[in-house]
């Protein structure tokens, strides 16, 4: 077995499985059963007898970088691509220039008829604690009830909508990304029937391939990372599309920013993840 001192010895069942797989592994051309098609990527015969080291860098078979296949060019207008893709997926996108995010969010909540509203700020440029305080004050002034960290019963039965910030956004698919952490609960973007997510246009990445190729993502993965693309949906009954199954049926993305061409080719990008 692997002698790496940091890896505890695997239980016997795993060791047995790995041994069985090594004996069966087609990693060496000689492992082919008679009559099988020849493997395009054979390995030298000496690799057959000695157990091969687990070396993830040995990727001769597959290119290490897939970004040659990106759908969204690097110089694309990411806000425009995001808006089109998100709209197609059923997300309602709002563009709020300057400080207009506040009236935009208030108008969205008004239209949703939301009275009790969960606010979840975090350390991103999308929705900070100071933003949440401003919004909470405005909601109270309008006779609404802002909530922070509700208990389970309230979360399930007493919240009409949640307002939170995203960790990132992906233009290609119109996706909003939320990450679990000390300030961000898994339930916030899932349990309430309506969800309003604030986005700093600088958080928008062009292509899925670019988002996942960021080396910072692999090293900083939260326990729960969600790529949210439109509302919760199903087509299980006769293929008819129904939204709002177990997650929110109404999802709004509010792009905030200082006017100009946010997210354009020369816009700065602050990768949170």
């Amino acid at each position, binding site marked *: 077995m692997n002698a790496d001192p940091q*890896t505890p010895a695997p239980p016997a*069942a*795993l060791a*047995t*499985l790995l041994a*069985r*797989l*090594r*004996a*069966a*592994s*087609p*990693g060496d051309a000689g492992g082919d*059963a008679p*009559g*099988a098609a020849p493997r395009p990527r054979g390995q030298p015969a000496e690799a057959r007898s000695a157990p*091969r080291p687990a070396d*993830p860098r040995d990727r001769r*078979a*597959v*290119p*290490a970088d897939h970004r040659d*296949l*990106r*759908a969204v060019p690097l110089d694309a207008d990411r806000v425009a691509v995001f808006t089109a893709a998100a709209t197609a*997926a059923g997300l309602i996108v709002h563009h709020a220039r300057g400080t207009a995010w506040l009236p935009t969010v208030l108008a969205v909540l008004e239209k949703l008829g939301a009275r009790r509203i969960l606010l979840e700020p975090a350390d991103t440029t999308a929705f900070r604690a100071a933003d949440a305080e401003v919004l909470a004050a405005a909601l109270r002034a309008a006779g609404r009830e802002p909530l922070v960290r509700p208990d389970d019963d309230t979360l399930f039965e007493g919240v009409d909508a949640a307002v939170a910030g995203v960790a990132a956004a992906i233009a*290609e*698919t119109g*996706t909003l990304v939320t990450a*679990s952490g000390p300030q*961000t*609960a*898994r*339930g916030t973007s*899932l349990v309430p029937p309506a969800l309003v997510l604030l986005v700093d246009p600088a958080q928008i990445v062009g292509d*899925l*391939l670019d988002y*996942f*190729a960021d080396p910072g993502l*692999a090293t900083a993965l939260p*326990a*729960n*990372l*969600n*790529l*949210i*693309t*439109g509302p*919760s*949906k*199903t087509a*299980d*009954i*006769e293929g008819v599309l*129904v939204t*709002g*199954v*177990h*997650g*929110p049926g109404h999802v709004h993305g509010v792009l905030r920013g200082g006017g100009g061409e946010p997210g354009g080719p020369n816009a700065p990008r602050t990768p949170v993840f």
Partner: protein
Amino acid sequence: MTASDLRARLAAGTRAARVVAAVHQATWRKVAQRDAALAALPHAAALRDRAAEIRAHVLARLPDYLEQFVAQATARGAQVHCAPDAEAAVRIITELAVRRGLRLAVKAKSMTSEEIGLNAALERAGLRVVETDLGEFIVQLDRDRPSHIIAPIIHKDRRQVAETLVRALGCRYTEDPTELTQIARRHLRDIFRRCDLGITGVNFAVAETGTLVLCTNEGNGRMCVSRPRVHVALLGIEKLIPRLADLPVLLKLIARASTGQPLGAYTTLITGPRRPGDPDGPEELHVVLLDHGRSRILAGPHRDILRCIRCGACLNACPVYRNVGGHAYASVYPGPIGSVLAPLLDGPSHADLPRASSLCGACLDACPVKIDIPQRLVALRAEHRARRPRAPRVGVRLWAWVMRRPWLYRLGQRVLRQMVRDDGDGFARRGPGWLALWTAGRDLRRPPARSFRALWNEELRDER
């Protein structure tokens, strides 16, 4: 399972007119959606090649990636278990549930859990198990089986769903899909509040980071991985991918192939259990690695089938699946992929399934990771024949005997031409004499007015 069983099931499938109509409509729509989604994707062909390469590469180095995955997942707080077979997987999950005194399990749709028959075992151990995917929820209430790996109730229409919900939940009768969905939502919401065990499958597992990836649409999967205090993920060992950077190649294809969406509503990446300071999430994350025949398949000539990402595109594309429905396969995985997987996973009882195909190749065209399913079917047929040498060869010998006597062949053609009568649409539902055995499972095309030989002799020969 005998050949006549298969024939009977296929015939029964085609006779269930309501089911056939429902399945036709749904599968054709999915095929159109898939085609449109892939046509709109830049580099679609290259992405398929790349996805096939990634999956083949993983299978070639599976033990290495598995070891890396286990080390990474463990380092991030997951507890990894190893199940050589279905019994072991069921025992591991049941024991850990009983030891912790867990009572209410919520499940996200997982074909792998169907494979090991998990629900019955958990219920015997005293747990209540609730399927929370809308389709699977209906299937469970009906004590039915899923008939499609992505759309479990593709064989039911809205009236049947309505009747089930009225009977099981005592709700008001409605045939409106939105209202039916809301009824299920309300019922399951209460369960999500109280559940203490979440059970899911896994779409992809990233070796580099020990991450589990779930691709879902309804949100029940997210509930199952964030509400209960224990999350158990059942992971078929072939589902690994090397790095996070490889994931988007597969993400770009899986939802398009499956439902025609660029990406499903929720792509969830789980890296360990709830962390210190997290306000919610499972305290324990258990990953159960399931072999259950996979290492045996890997060692044999059919290993390419393990590239499968369970998107269901081959089911939608298959003319046989479309006409007989998923239940006729009598296996956990129906359709073309099931015709290969079932005999390999479950052995002799499904040995005749590879015959339930016309080898038209639509499944190969549809497969996002380019598995040559027709080639596997032919190979499995040959293996099956090699084990049962006698009977089928009689027909082949008779055919060869006739073919060596051109006068007899011509006579036979002429006789058949007279005897086969179509039903007005160019197809004969019931052939004459022994041909009835053949037409029991298929329709026979009416012979053309002139045979190819006649055509050749009278016209084509001179055009050479």
